[in-house]
């Protein structure tokens, strides 16, 4: 199958003098980049815009951290064992997602599906832990309506949780597509975007568990 999208129709496939066609290298010398590169770059731009949205939530949380309105503080609420379990789930799932990209690169359907299944299970365990934590907060009267601090906390961490849930749906459709359509080029491009998304979610969680949970349980007199 040819891939006509790789080169624009009106643009001749010219290589610079002295370099054989097909062996060109360097910047801009080889004509338009392969579609895979463009897909990855475009999705990378989207991920960065997502990170910028999260940074706004982080800023709101940092500003409102002490506005507890007489309600429970982070120090009283957070349970670090739960946070550690969530962190372990996401870190392992980001590794298994990496294994899935290797399996896709080597065209092994069995290993791809196995690695994706593990990724999904770990991600699901993370979501369950998070929902249990949120439910316990609400049961203790520390819901998102209790104080500005809790509103910003639920917005920031909940937004990450929604991202993970959507990614789980996406993961399920990727498994189905690999099963039904095999390692077609467009499916692999979708999978590239998915793996980037999953790794980026773990990066956001790294910031959350360090700066929200671990900094949050410090005694108030130790905070800047």
């Amino acid at each position, binding site marked *: 199958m040819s891939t006509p999208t790789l080169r624009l129709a009106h643009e001749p496939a010219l290589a610079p003098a002295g370099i054989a066609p097909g062996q060109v290298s360097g910047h*801009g010398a080889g004509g338009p980049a392969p579609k895979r590169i463009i897909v990855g770059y475009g999705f990378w731009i989207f991920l960065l815009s997502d990170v910028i949205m999260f940074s706004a939530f982080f800023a709101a949380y940092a500003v409102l951290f002490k506005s507890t309105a007489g309600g429970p503080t982070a120090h009283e609420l957070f349970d*670090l064992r739960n946070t550690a379990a969530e962190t372990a789930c996401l870190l392992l799932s980001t590794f298994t997602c990496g294994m899935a990209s290797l399996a896709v690169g080597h065209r092994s359907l069995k290993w791809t599906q196995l690695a994706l299944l593990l990724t999904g299970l770990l991600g699901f365990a993370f979501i369950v832990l998070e929902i249990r934590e949120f439910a316990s907060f609400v049961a203790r009267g520390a819901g998102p309506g209790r104080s500005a601090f809790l509103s910003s906390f639920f917005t920031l961490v909940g937004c990450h949780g929604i991202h993970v849930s959507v990614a789980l749906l996406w993961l399920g459709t990727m498994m189905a597509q690999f099963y039904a359509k095999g390692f077609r080029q467009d499916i692999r491009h979708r999978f590239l975007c998915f793996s980037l998304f999953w790794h980026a979610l773990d990066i956001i969680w790294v910031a959350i568990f360090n700066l929200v949970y671990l900094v949050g349980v410090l005694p108030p007199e130790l905070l800047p």
Partner: protein
Amino acid sequence: MSEHSDFEAGSYVGADRAPGRPDERTLAQEVRGYLLGLGLAALLTIASFWSLQTREIYASGIAMALLVLAVAQIGIHLVFFLHITTDPDNENNILALAFGVLIVCLIVFGSLWVMLHLNHNLMPMDKLMQMQR
């Protein structure tokens, strides 16, 4: 160009690379790369949790230590999992990332700076309430 060619070695038209794609290496080397990333990330995670229990760190500096550990771990994830490296093929991805980091820093530190100064310059809420009575 065959259907599979865009994943194979030496098939690039240009030399640009997408994020999330490792070099052309053997499977064992690739797995080792991911394992190394996992190990380093796990070490930094443990260090973060450990810093709360230890007395080795000056107490007022723990928050700053956690910030540094978070940035370090994000760096590990970028290099080992997203394969953002400093080689010239990654130039576009690096530039986009640098711009993203700039905006993130502006939003977070800018908000904190402005809001903390506002807090500092405004009358405390309880005094304000008393004046309203």
